[in-house]
């Protein structure tokens, strides 16, 4: 078991390294040496999932649903197949209309109309789902995690009240790192 997990650790590390090499190797993209913003964000999404607990953790898969398009969700697809807390991440593009029936654990919003977003947030108001978006004021409109740019760095803010409503437990460590938290 240990050897297996160890080898999977190594494998993962190799993947990660190759990714970094690949990413840094991209010539003339944006700022030199820095990864593109969407990649940073998708990595942060992935890391964030590690500090969150869902009410029912029994499922083998973590359903990561992407709504809409845009630079934010562009890197999310790379998370497909990754493992978080023993659950393999399944990334799927969903239409706003079919969000409710997908059993999503995470809902990442791309470029979605404001009314659609509000509707979807309202729709999944009490569902055990974490909602993410990089639209400004996302958490004030009921989203759980919203990405913001602060001094050129990607940060995030958290609506703890929304998380509680969604019955998602967010690690205090994560809360500490958030630029702002809505209690």
């Amino acid at each position: 078991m240990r050897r297996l997990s160890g080898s999977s650790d190594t494998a993962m590390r190799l993947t990660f390294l190759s990714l970094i090499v690949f990413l840094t190797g991209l010539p003339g993209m944006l700022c030199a040496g820095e990864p593109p913003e969407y990649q940073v964000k998708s990595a942060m999404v992935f890391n964030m999932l590690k500090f969150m607990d869902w009410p029912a953790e029994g499922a083998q898969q973590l359903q990561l649903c992407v709504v809409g398009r845009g630079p934010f969700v562009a890197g999310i697809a790379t998370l497909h197949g990754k493992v978080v807390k023993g659950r393999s991440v399944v990334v799927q593009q969903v239409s706003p209309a079919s969000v409710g029936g997908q059993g999503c654990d995470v809902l990442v919003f791309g470029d979605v109309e404001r009314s659609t977003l509000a509707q979807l947030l309202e729709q999944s108001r009490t569902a055990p789902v974490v909602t993410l978006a990089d639209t400004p004021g996302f958490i004030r409109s009921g989203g759980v995690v919203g990405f913001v740019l602060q001094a050129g760095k990607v940060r995030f803010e958290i609506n703890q009240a929304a998380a509680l409503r969604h019955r998602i437990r967010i690690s205090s460590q994560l809360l500490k790192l958030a630029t702002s938290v809505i209690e």
Partner: protein
Amino acid sequence: MHPVLKKYLTHISIRRKLMLLIMAACSVVLLASTAAYLLKETISIVRAQSNDLKSLADIIGKNVAAPLTFNDPQSAMDTMASLKVKGDVIAAYILQQDTTVFSRYLATTSSQSNLPYELPGADYSPESCRRILNQLAKQSHNLIPVNDQVVLVAPIRLDDQEIGTIVLFASTQQLKVRLAVTLLMSVCILCLAFIAAYLLSMRLQQVVSEPIRILSDAMRQVSETKDFSLRVVRPGDDEIGQLCDGFNEMLQEIEERNLILRQRQEHLQELAHFDALTRLPNRILFHDRLQQAMNLALRNDQLIAIMFLDLDRFKDINDTMGHRIGDLLLQQVAGRMGLALRDCDTVARLGGDEFTIFAQNVKSKENGARLAQKLIDMFEIPYFIEGNHLYVTCSIGVTFFPYDADTMDLLLMNADVAMYHAKSAGKNTYRLYTQDMNQYAGDRVALQTDLRRAINLQQLYLLYQPKLDIASGKITGVEALIRWQHPERGLISPTTFIPLAEENGCIQPITEWVLRTACAQAKRWYDSGLTSLSVAVNISAYCLKRQNIPQVVRQVLEEAGLPPRLLELELTESLLVENDHQAEQVLADLKQIGVTIAIDDFGTGYSSLSYLHHFPIDCLKIDRSFVWNMQRGESDQAIVAAIIAMAHSLNLKVVAEGVETNEHLSALRMCGCDMIQGYLISKPVPADDLGERMLVGYEDTDI
């Protein structure tokens, strides 16, 4: 074991040894347990710190997982700021996956010289960071501190993935303080335990050593004071108790043996200084006391009377009644002498029937003479021994210190000489020593020497005194009488030399010589026609006891060829003692040979008349004293008449001795006496003279 230590151990007291033993045992146990305790404590303290650090690393790792993931060093630093409350943490580093330092915490108080990340050369490049980490990882699980600090390197995990590393540096200062405190406490407890063990061992060892000490002290006391009556009190039932018992028993044994030894010594002392038979002082003690008395007398100008006392005819008593009676007599004599003398006088038995006496401070010679007479008078009362009344007399020689001599040897010799003078003077008397007695004393010793050679030198010869039968007027026998012609001193009387001969033992060859000579003479007479002439020979009681007289007589008669009836043996009256079976047997043997037996000097000795019929006797010879006294009074004549009548009634012949006058003869004839012997008939004459007389007859005598 080291020889010095061994020597020391063998020389110290048991008390010390026991204490050493107990203390050594205690020390081993205490030190071992203390060492074990300290080791365990040290390990547990080190482990505790190590565990402490591990859990600390765990907590911090968990808390910095998010800042690390989201690359927020500041947040990580905030988290690590809480380490401030942990005094022993010097520094903490959060390393990223590529081992570069992500965040760090430094305790304000700590010196940074031992922290590899803070060294001047540290540049935080990934290479140097990796190198440092590898180095630290080696130290991490080492419990032994390096440079007073321990290092813990632990991975930071998130969701089963290693996302970084935490490195903790902790000071061992507190650990050392804790160890020191533990050590100090242990030492204190150890010391207290030692003191307690010492006090306890002092008490405990007494249980063993005290009884031994008591025993040892007792032994020393016994050996110093030689007091074997000492005993030790038994302390208990253990081996020491048994030892005490053994010791006591040994002392008991020694005490008893000592007592016996002392008694034996006293007994030996007595044996050495006292005569076993009479309990009187012996020669040694007498000499000792006399010497002291002489010294005292010289100083005080006093006179000492020294006496030599000898019982008269004691030999006869010994010979006839046995040595046992003789010994009992000596004891009674000794007892009586003790009563007769003063306390300051000493009487000793020199041996045999000889006693020596000295009386201190007698004032005058007359007093000495009086004392001697007193002793002689003491013998007047007969001694009563086992149904026999024994009449004993004594002769005493007296000499005076310092008049007669000044040395003890001379004095005793003088007394001895004086005593012999008393004997010569007829016994039952005393003589005071005079200078001219010395001549005689020399004689006695010389005479004894001469007597031994007298037989071979033919100085002895026999005279014969005839016996006349009153009725027939014929000479029927002769008595052989011995004479000694000494070449220088002339004729010596048998009354002088026979006692000497008995004293030195040459009486036996003399008796044999007399028997042989007399028988040879009788045979000559027999051959010349005198066929009925008998020869009488005197046999002393001494010889009869010691010599096989019947054997000698038989042999002599055979040699001479003389008919036994012609030999008459004259024996002394003292033989006729009741129950003397030996004498009875000897007489019976002689009678069987056929010789005639006469009792000589009858009437002077013991009252043995009643036993006459026990013995095969043929003849009685009445002592001359009776014959001589016959004319003085009627009573003596009556006695002689009675003896003769009695003898006749027992079919015995009677010979009267010492008949010198015709009056004697007529008186004896009237009494019915058978034969006479004496100067009236003839004095003792040589055989040749007698032969002629015999042939011519005795017609000239007035019978």
